């Protein structure tokens, strides 16, 4: 039996197609994937992503724990700043990719993928030998994301905080539109200006309705997980479970930029340092179909008739109107411009290694 977010009945009433995802019935689309995708690129969309996990890590040992479990350097954070990070395991794979928010002194929040909440919690708990305080607030927290070039104008209607002063990956905690102890963050997963609004469940319905009301004049529409996936793929962002998992290395995935091996030891840092020194054998690349066809997760990647890898994510890019995807290939075939074939229904379809993001922002 799937769980439901606080907004389930709103999605149902809007005629959303709901699918089971990470234990929740989630809206995959309300009207059309393309329309919702383009709304986020051109105006704004609102996502219910309340299925995501949120852990509070606090106390004098909070930073020490976060530094131990995450690959990025959380000591660089200042209160009100967030960072993308990942949690390596001891085999050089990835437990999860996460965002770390520094809310205020000795108080952090980790946002985890919905499908990994339990695994992440246990992983962090097992690493918590220093005695940081951990609270799982996933069940009591709703998360709305307003994303698109009009997002700031819409969210600004509900607050006196000057949102134009917030760069990307900032956050503040305050009463927001009547919702006490909300966290407003400029983190997101679409490549567009995004405000992620973390609120207690009891405020979710009113927040959604108020945002929809003030957003109407800006073209705000509800947007589902379908559009969210094509939006993130156009940006080349990782989807845990597809592009990265317990077996893939952050270095192979192109996440070297959040793998700070010089920050001091952390979970998996030894093996990642070794990988870096020895060089990695495969790399995640962006793939664009040259003519017609759509790569899909699980399709084989071939080079000169030989299978060399597998597509991990793929879709039609609504903006480019082309098939795009990502997949791991041997490092020697990862250079931009390399011609590869994607096996679509047993036929090789020509694709080219391209840089990510796939679109120009």
């Amino acid at each position, binding site marked *: 039996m799937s769980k439901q977010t606080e907004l389930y009945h709103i999605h149902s009433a809007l005629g959303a*197609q709901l699918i089971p995802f990470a234990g929740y019935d989630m809206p*995959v*689309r309300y009207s*059309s*994937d*393309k*329309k919702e*995708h383009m709304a986020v690129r051109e105006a704004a969309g609102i996502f219910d992503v309340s299925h995501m996990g949120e852990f509070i890590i606090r106390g004098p040992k909070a930073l020490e724990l976060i530094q131990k479990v995450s690959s990025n350097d959380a000591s660089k954070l200042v209160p009100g700043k967030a960072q993308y990070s990942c949690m390596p395991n001891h085999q050089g794979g990835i437990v999860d990719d996460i965002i770390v928010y520094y809310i205020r002194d000795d108080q952090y929040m980790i946002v985890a993928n919905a499908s990994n909440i339990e695994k992440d919690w246990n992983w962090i708990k097992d690493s918590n030998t220093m005695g940081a305080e951990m609270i799982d607030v996933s069940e009591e927290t709703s998360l709305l994301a307003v994303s698109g070039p009009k997002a700031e104008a819409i969210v600004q209607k509900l607050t006196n905080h000057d949102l134009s002063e917030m760069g990307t990956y900032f956050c503040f905690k305050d009463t927001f539109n009547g919702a006490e102890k909300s966290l407003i963050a400029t983190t997101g997963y679409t490549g567009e200006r995004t405000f992620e609004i973390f609120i207690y469940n009891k405020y979710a319905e009113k927040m959604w309705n108020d945002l929809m009301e003030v957003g109407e004049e800006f073209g705000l529409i509800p947007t589902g997980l*379908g559009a969210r*996936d*094509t939006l993130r793929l156009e940006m080349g962002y990782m989807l845990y479970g597809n592009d990265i998992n317990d077996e893939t290395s952050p270095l192979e995935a192109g996440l070297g930029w959040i793998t700070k091996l010089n920050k001091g030891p952390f979970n998996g840092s030894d093996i990642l340092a070794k990988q870096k020194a020895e060089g990695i054998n495969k790399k995640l690349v962006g793939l664009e179909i040259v003519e*017609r066809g*759509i790569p*899909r997760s699980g399709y084989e990647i071939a080079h000169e008739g030989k299978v060399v890898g597998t597509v991990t994510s793929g*879709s*039609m890019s*609504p903006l480019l109107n082309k098939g795009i995807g990502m997949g791991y290939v041997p490092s020697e075939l990862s250079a931009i411009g390399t011609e590869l074939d994607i096996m679509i*229904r047993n036929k090789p379809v020509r694709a080219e290694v391209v840089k990510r993001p796939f679109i120009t922002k």
Partner: protein
Amino acid sequence: MNFPENLLYTEDHEWVKIDGNTATVGITDFAQSQLGDIVYVEIETEGDELDAAEVFGSVEAVKTVADLYMPVGGTVSEINGELEDEPELVNTDPYGKGWLIKITTEDGFDTDDLLSVEAYTEHVKAQS
């Protein structure tokens, strides 16, 4: 959800309209709504003689791809050429301009395994 009464259906969500020795085939309103925006239809079986339940092509939506199955056996005699430029017709008019193929036979069609509109409606209810 619209399921015309004059059609027969498959459990795989194709519809078929039989007119003598010619059958017109498409996918149902339910199928197109589940697939989402259709971005192209790939059918390379024109002229082939296929059995019922054989794959005659595939339909690619933004998010997913689905095989298309012959509702009845026969020869794929015509493909809807308009879908080359306007695949979205399958979304907007699944029973009309969004038809996919025509099948011909000289032996008469075997419709025993096809579903009536009532049976298909029940089938969809069970799935959603």
